[in-house]
């Protein structure tokens, strides 16, 4: 009866549990939402179903037949197609080649550009994408286009089981997607819709499953649920305790530590003016790929700033590399976007990861004093809520949450007062998130000026004093205090002009 029957899935990565006796049953023509915090197991389950990850135990049945696990080809043959959160596109091939990668048309052994682009154009048109040139290199497309391509690629396979993992992170226009998902449903497909945007789920899905810590903890009905209840089930505690409150109000005379005027970074940041005062947490919101990264990295000296002024504690400064950023006035430190690639030193221990900024201080005649190093790292780790037993471990083996804590500990050691935090809670389990929030609050209370980008709007609502919304490289709205609401942010994030001008008006 049920198209998809999953039972008893277990998957361990070293010490952490990704899936714990997870099971789910979905029928044909059903759009099932799967919600859960990062680290709840949603992505792992998706990977198991797609054949990329082999579970330690468990079974998947599609239309009654057992699916061979760990073999992507088998999943695809069974009709399982997935639009991945980490897009599975190949950057140095064209749109058309990516679209048809599994079945490239050949004429005498050669994939003629015309043939493949023609076929691709047809497919794109069929799925209502009129503005994507099939000949373009995927690597040069904006993120929203890439996401749309990934979705078309999945939809065009006419899947029996359609899996969408966070499909709208960078998508400004969700109607297009919903239309096609519903059409697929009408054709008998069963859809798994993984998202943390509860509003969208309410619009699209008929049923929902909640995951936490690798387990299935319950079902809910998207048309009739309480926001708070769902979130409680997801994070295992009441939402009212989710965000630590502000300790004390920002003094009126708090100095502006960071100020930008008309900042431009290539074509990605086109004139952003903002400021952050001592003790303030300023949030940056917006769809992914709207220039947030370039803004943060430009301020940190990791991307070249092409125009505008940056003032650090009142002094106009040119920041040409992260080293200079750390030395500029009270210091600017960046908590980077891609933890694995830019944040941690995976093959080295936590102590080594954390102590980087203090190496000079800790050395005598060029030799590092290991006792004091360990002590310093322990203290910093403690401040970042990192359990002591992880200090000797290779950071690459830690969970996402602990990895991030090591990064935060290191950032603390830099002594920088201006903190740029780029989506610091991405891919982190709920309890670690709380600890990150607490670290954030403590830093601000100690006089740091924090610029904070997050893809989870509730975080912005719960932690920030002010929020700037970015769209296409420009700050299109700014909200303060009570004005900061999920709706306001979401509206302006998709470039809704009216709300933008209204907000601008208020700001002026």
């Amino acid at each position, binding site marked *: 009866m049920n198209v998809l029957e999953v039972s008893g899935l277990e998957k361990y990565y070293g010490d952490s549990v990704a899936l714990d006796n997870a099971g789910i049953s979905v029928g044909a023509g059903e759009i099932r939402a799967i919600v859960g915090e990062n680290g709840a197991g949603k992505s792992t389950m998706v990977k198991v179903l*797609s*054949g*990329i990850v082999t579970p330690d135990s468990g079974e998947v049945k599609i239309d009654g037949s057992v699916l061979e696990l760990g073999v*992507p*080809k088998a*999943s*695809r043959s069974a009709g399982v197609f*997935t639009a*991945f959160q980490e*897009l*599975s*596109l*190949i*950057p*140095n*091939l*064209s749109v058309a*080649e990516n679209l048809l*990668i*599994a079945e*490239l048309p*050949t004429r005498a*052994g*050669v*994939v*003629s*550009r015309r043939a493949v682009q023609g076929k691709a154009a047809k497919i794109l048109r069929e799925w209502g994408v*009129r*503005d*994507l*040139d099939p*000949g*373009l*290199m995927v690597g*040069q*497309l*904006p993120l*929203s*286009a890439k996401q*749309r391509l990934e979705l078309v690629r999945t939809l065009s396979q006419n899947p029996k089981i359609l899996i969408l993992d966070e499909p709208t992170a960078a998508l*400004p*226009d969700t109607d297009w997607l919903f239309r096609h998902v519903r059409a697929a449903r009408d054709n008998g497909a069963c859809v798994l819709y993984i998202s943390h945007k509860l509003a969208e789920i309410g619009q699209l899905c008929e049923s929902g499953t909640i995951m936490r810590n690798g387990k299935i903890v319950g079902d809910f009905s998207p048309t009739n649920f309480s926001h708070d209840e769902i979130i409680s089930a997801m994070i295992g505690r009441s939402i009212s305790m989710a965000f630590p409150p502000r300790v004390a109000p920002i003094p009126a005379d708090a100095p502006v530590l960071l100020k930008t005027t008309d900042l431009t*970074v*290539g*074509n*990605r940041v086109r004139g952003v003016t903002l400021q952050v005062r001592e003790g303030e947490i300023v949030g940056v919101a917006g769809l992914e790929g*709207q220039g947030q990264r*370039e803004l943060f990295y430009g301020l940190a000296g990791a*991307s*070249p700033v*092409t125009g505008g002024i940056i003032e650090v504690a009142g002094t106009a400064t040119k920041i040409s590399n992260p080293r200079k950023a750390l030395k500029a006035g009270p210091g600017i430190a960046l908590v980077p976007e891609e933890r694995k690639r830019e944040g941690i030193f995976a093959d080295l221990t936590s102590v080594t990861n954390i102590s980087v900024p203090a190496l000079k201080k800790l050395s005598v005649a060029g030799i590092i004093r290991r006792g004091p190093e360990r002590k310093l790292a322990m203290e910093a780790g403690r401040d970042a809520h990192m359990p002591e037993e992880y200090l000797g471990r290779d950071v690459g083996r830690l969970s996402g949450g602990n990895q991030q804590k090591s990064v935060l500990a290191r950032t603390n050691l830099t002594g920088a007062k201006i903190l740029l935090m780029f989506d610091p809670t991405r891919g982190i389990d709920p309890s670690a998130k709380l600890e990150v929030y607490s670290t954030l609050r403590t830093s601000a209370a100690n006089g740091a000026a924090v610029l904070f980008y997050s893809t989870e709007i509730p975080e912005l609502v719960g932690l920030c004093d002010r929020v700037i919304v970015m769209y*296409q*490289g420009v700050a299109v709205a700014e909200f303060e205090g009570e004005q900061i609401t999920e709706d306001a942010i979401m509206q302006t994030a998709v470039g809704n002009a009216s709300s933008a001008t209204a907000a601008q008006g208020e700001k002026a």
Partner: protein
Amino acid sequence: MNTKFGRIRQIVTDGTGRAVIFWLILMTIWLSLQSTQGMGVDARLIQSYLVLALPLIVASIGVTLVIIMGQFDLSAAGVIAVVNVTIASTLGSWNPLLVVVLMMALGGFIGLVNGLFVILGKLPAIAVTLATLIILQGLAIVILPQPSGKVPPFLVDGVRAPFVAVGIIVVIIIAWMLFKRSRSGLYMFAIGADPEALHLSGLPVKKIQLKIFVIAGALYGLAGVLMSASLTSGDANAADSFLLTTFAATAIGGTAFVGGRGSAVGTLFGALTLLAIPKVLFVFGVSDWTQKVAFGLLVLLAVVAGAFSSLRKNRESMLLAPYSTPTEGEPITATKGGNA
């Protein structure tokens, strides 16, 4: 980029284009100096230059393929040495066509062994191919401790026949044009850029990787045949220089060692350039020590120019990607056209 300057800029920033230009400059210098010094420029001069270049061209292309795929292969020199001594010592009177096929098969087999260790054994390619290189070079010495033997005359004469060398080069260029648009070719580029993505799409990544190692090995085998024809006899140590020249040719040809991009045509001109350098130096009356220095400096120049320009390219392209306005139906354009 429709302006004339834009076009020129495009050619210069493209690795292959740069390699061709560099080579043309060298050739012009060489040939004009040759004639002004009364040493005569005729078809035979060019012919012997090309015949000499063939083995390096073919071997370097094999290396290029492996690099585009994101791997490493140091074993070319070893394969060539073994092929050379085998031909010279035992296959001297065999049917040349059979010799070619057999030696390419041998090379392919060695490539397969390399591939199995790297892909299935999960060992770093540089280490494995270094080991196989050492083993092969040793085997070559075992087979033919002293330079001797003879290469089938038909092979020797065949390669030196008029237009054969040019013909082979043309065939190579055409073969590359076809291969890079074939499924295997596209997959090769894809694996070099992102093997995960290909794996997610259900494609047999490991099989493709093995295939490329085998193709590269077969190319080394062919290079060994060509080298034997050029050398006319067997010498176990004669192939030693290939270890580094194949990589130099690849780099001069504009292929970066990062994987995901590159061009065999670029490598072809890189190899031609590499072999033109000694000729230019000779004509300049440079010999002995200055030759080594000049050779090294010229290679450095070529590589540094390449690095400098890709540095520029990378820095610009990422940040210049504009935003699109899809809801208004405007076509999404990229900053610069692709360069596969």
